[in-house]
């Protein structure tokens, strides 16, 4: 059962090949038995999962139900779950149980999906290797000496190890796509405003966007269809109808115009990775797409702009964690200042504190114009690069990450090296564009990803292209070794 895609599981549930309860118990058993190898879950919720599965079985028996009814999934621990601890990978929220659900959690529950538990992540989604989690690093199922990528490392590892058929994730600078690349998965960051941010614990509000991690583009289309909704509780969520993303998966790619930015193949890119990506682009050409080289001239400024904007926003977003209303509070605070400082320093990890300090610096008197304002100007230039490019192409294609998964500790002591890990993914967050990573081969027996970047609200086009590619390739069907 655990080798089936969501589309296949939905079929199996309807043909009574297995019940949701059987399916759910099967996954819970796998998690119980295997997750000690990966550490992908922070919290497992077996009782709730079985109750949800039983309810889903009843719904399924009564006829026509949403496609995800009875399908088990797991949520990144950044999404608030009513009555279930939501830690955001931090000691700060180790004891936090929200009395409300994130909108996307509600959406999946309403569709009848079953929640297996909450997935590990870099603390407050700050990291590209899942080494900053309070709950310990997540291991890459393809090579447990290597990182799964981050920040949605738990989501990626769980799906790659077939501990869940799909997982929710979030992407602020590449946190869905880079783990998808490193774990051989399909990972979609939708257009900013496509998916509600209500109940998703904020890292950098103008960049954060939730999306799915799945094994196939078809599953991604199914997952996004339920995840995306208009939500009046999120001022930045756009009131746009959610199309049936599965309906256009079969469209021909004849005439698809692909742009390949030369800046995405510069030094720093692993040559083997480059070669897999180029091969993949050729496959699209064989299917009738046209390919041309383009330039996104401000690409090199994306990481610098991001590391002003994201820390600035996070420094304010994380001020609410003060030991007063919820979360960690230090023992015996001497006074108010002591309460704040010790609660925050004792409960935030090193990377989180570093970003808070950088953000405070970029916004502080005398530096605002040189850093924050400048970064916001560069952000517009980066967006304009894409706007110009999409005048005569449909999809940008290039690598997702510079290399396949690296070993633990390889970059964790060098924040700048770690930040450059997201060099190809960050610009889409700054511009608010949708980006998709799909597996396109192995390098050193580890997966590498092809990134597709589309124009605003062109998720259907990206998923269509990815699905057509997956019809003629089998990289997405390759599984990590030894997951049985």
């Amino acid at each position, binding site marked *: 059962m655990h080798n089936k895609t969501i589309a296949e599981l939905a079929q199996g549930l309807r043909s009574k090949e297995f019940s949701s309860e059987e399916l759910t118990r099967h996954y819970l058993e796998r998690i119980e038995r295997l997750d000690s190898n990966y550490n992908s879950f922070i919290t497992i919720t077996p009782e709730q999962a079985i109750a949800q599965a039983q309810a889903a079985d009843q719904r399924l028996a009564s006829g026509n139900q949403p496609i995800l009814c009875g399908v088990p999934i797991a949520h990144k621990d950044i999404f608030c779950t009513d009555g279930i601890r939501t830690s955001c990978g931090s000691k700060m929220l180790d004891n936090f149980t929200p009395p409300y659900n994130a909108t996307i959690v509600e959406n999946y529950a309403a569709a009848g999906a079953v929640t297996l538990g909450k997935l590990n992540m870099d603390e407050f989604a700050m990291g590209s290797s899942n080494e900053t989690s309070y709950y310990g690093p997540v291991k890459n199922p393809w090579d447990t000496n290597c990182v799964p990528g981050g920040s949605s490392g738990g989501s990626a590892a769980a799906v790659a190890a077939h501990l869940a058929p799909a997982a929710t994730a979030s992407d602020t600078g590449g946190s869905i796509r880079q783990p998808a690349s490193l774990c051989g998965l399909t990972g979609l960051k939708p257009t900013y405003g496509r998916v509600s941010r209500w109940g998703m614990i904020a890292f950098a509000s103008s*960049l954060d966007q939730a999306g799915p991690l799945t094994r196939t583009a078809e599953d991604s289309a199914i997952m996004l269809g339920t995840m995306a909704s208009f939500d009046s509780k999120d001022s930045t969520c756009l009131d746009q109808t959610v199309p049936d993303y599965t309906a256009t998966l079969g469209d021909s790619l004849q005439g698809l115009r692909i742009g390949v930015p030369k800046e995405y193949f510069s030094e720093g890119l692993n040559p083997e990775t480059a070669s897999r990506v180029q091969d993949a682009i050729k496959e699209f050409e064989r299917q009738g797409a046209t390919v041309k080289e383009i330039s996104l001239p401000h690409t090199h400024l994306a990481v610098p702009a991001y590391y002003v904007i994201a820390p600035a926003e996070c420094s304010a977003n994380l001020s609410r964690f003060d030991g007063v209303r919820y979360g960690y509070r230090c023992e015996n605070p001497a006074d*108010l200042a002591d309460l704040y400082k010790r609660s925050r320093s004792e409960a935030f990890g090193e990377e989180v*504190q570093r970003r808070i300090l950088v953000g405070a610096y970029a916004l502080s008197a005398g530096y605002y114009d040189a850093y924050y304002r400048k970064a916001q100007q560069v952000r517009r230039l980066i967006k304009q690069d894409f706007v110009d490019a999409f005048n005569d192409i449909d999809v940008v294609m290039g690598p997702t990450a510079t290399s396949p998964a690296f070993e633990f500790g390889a970059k964790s002591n060098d924040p700048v090296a770690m930040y450059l890990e997201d060099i190809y993914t960050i610009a889409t967050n700054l511009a608010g564009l949708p980006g998709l990573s799909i597996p396109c081969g192995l390098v050193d027996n580890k997966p590498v990803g092809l990134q597709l970047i589309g124009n605003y609200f062109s998720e259907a086009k990206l998923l269509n292209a990815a699905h057509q590619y997956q019809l003629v390739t089998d990289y997405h069907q390759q599984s990590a070794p030894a997951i049985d």
Partner: protein
Amino acid sequence: MDRSDIAKLAELARLQISNEHADEVAQSITDVLALVDQLQAANTEGVSPMAHPLDAVQRLRADVVTEPNQREAFQAQAPATDKGHYLVPKVID
């Protein structure tokens, strides 16, 4: 970035950075700022800053009470409460 810069930032951000860590933190932030300083080379003359990825405008909410009292549920998460209040060490203005 030196220790005193870090101390100022830590004060603003209400973080406690121990003396033994201050140099290390200063160094790593200096490294990050070196990366970020590439921005200074960009020509941004006449470019308006962009705070949001999309050119959308704010929706306004109707002035209708929608939130019931959930004090008990919220305060169940709080480290210290008394008589419906959140407790903090004495606030001195």
